[in-house]
């Protein structure tokens, strides 16, 4: 089959896009994707940041966990998705788990890096002025690590977007992944590309928004 059939004209993709917007199946898939993405990202951030901070503060926690964090940071997590399906079922849980497995490691790594990179003179300043250890951590170390933590969250968003799509595509029955495989098997290339464009546009909107947020606290890093 030639490339021409696979790449329909833009006008066709545009009308397919308008058609998509009127379909319940699309909005169901959209809702499912948004839900699993947000829950998965929330879990990654909510669990990843405390773990990263702990690893930054405690050398033991770091030595115990860093090997695993580094393994999963760059390993092909995609291979794990087939194992999640029989355990968690064909549904939200598997996709959420995929998102977490894609996104959490970079949150941990960056939070840890942020904490270890806090300027030693800020910590000394806290100690000189009589802060307790907890005060040094909550008043100085964590706020000072915020730029790296936010960077970690931004990278996690990129990975979570990939995770939510890869998860659905490997499962191939639910969400956008279900739509993708239906369109492909029925050779509805206009719809396939329309959906690709929608997914890419969503991805860039989300990532652009997070980059905007990150820039808003950029003065932090500048002031160091």
């Amino acid at each position, binding site marked *: *089959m030639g*490339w021409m*059939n*696979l790449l329909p004209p833009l006008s066709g993709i545009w009308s397919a896009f308008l058609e998509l917007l009127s379909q319940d199946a699309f909005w169901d898939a959209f809702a499912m994707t948004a839900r699993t993405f947000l829950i998965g990202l929330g879990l990654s951030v909510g669990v990843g940041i405390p773990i990263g901070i702990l690893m930054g503060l405690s*050398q033991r926690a770091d*030595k*115990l*966990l860093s*090997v*695993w964090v580094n*393994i999963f940071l*760059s*390993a*092909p*997590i*995609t*291979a*794990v*998705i*087939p*194992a999640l*399906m*029989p*355990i968690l079922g064909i549904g939200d849980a598997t996709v959420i788990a995929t998102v977490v497995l894609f996104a959490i490691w970079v949150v941990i790594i960056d939070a840890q890096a942020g904490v270890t990179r806090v300027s*030693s003179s800020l*910590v*000394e300043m806290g*100690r000189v002025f009589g802060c307790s*250890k907890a005060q040094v951590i909550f008043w100085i170390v964590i706020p000072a690590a915020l730029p790296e933590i936010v960077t970690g969250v931004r990278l996690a968003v*990129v990975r979570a*977007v*990939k995770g*939510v*799509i*890869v998860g659905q*595509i*490997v499962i*191939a029955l639910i969400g*956008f992944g279900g739509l*993708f*495989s239906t369109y*492909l098997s029925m*050779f509805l290339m206009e719809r*396939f590309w329309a*959906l*690709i464009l929608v*997914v*890419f546009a969503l*991805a*860039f909107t989300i*990532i652009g928004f997070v980059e905007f947020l990150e820039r808003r606290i950029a003065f932090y890093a500048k002031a160091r």
Partner: protein
Amino acid sequence: MADTFQTSAPPTLPSLRAWANSTIAWRFYSFALVLAIWELASLSGFSVAFPRASAVAVAFWQMLVDGEFTAAYADSLPPLLVGLAITIVGGVIIGVSIGLFRGAEWFVMPLLIIFQTAPVSAIIPMLTYVYGISDTSKVVAIVILGMPLVALNSYKGIQATNKSLLEMSRSFMLSRIGTILLVILPSARKMIFAGLRLGVSGAFIGIVLAELLITPTGIGDLITFNRSIARYDKMFAAIVSILALATISLSIMQTIENRMFSAGSKK
């Protein structure tokens, strides 16, 4: 200087405690901890599809002895290596070229950035229609997922050349070729090499995706087949094998990288 939280110098440790604190020992604790959690989680019996770590280890050994891994990797490794070679050579050439000759920058960069940040894996299933159920599909999937990362890093490496080094070369009347060979490429080496690691990481994702979605052979098939017959211990063993292979490859590259760059430039 010492850890900012601990002011006093640590006392010298007796040898046994020193050993118990060594990097290797901590690595051991780390693995023991995770394997123990896995074993206990499985023993709690929350899912039949979640085998015990020990059962997976047994299955892993059997598959190794029975040649199941050998057969699977005989199918997976050749396309992986071919795809990786194209990824690396193509990625470095593209990245370096757009870094050096800014003409194509406006066109190639947005494409690279899209391929890097967007969930391009959504396109992978479509490859079936172009290349069919074949090794070519695997190679293309690898290149799609790996090459943009290599190219972007090479480009960034070229871009990050120290401006005053460039001015220095100009003031010494170094030719353009001379500047590229003696200043720009050496200073970009580190970033380019780091990009290769990202490329390898992407290549592993590519081969797994292709084998799960398009061409059911090799390690991907070993995973899906064992799932379909509910041999979850073997399924996990297959997953562990590919994760381990990726991790070992990447850490070998990291070691080479550290050796290469520890002596020379510091950054």
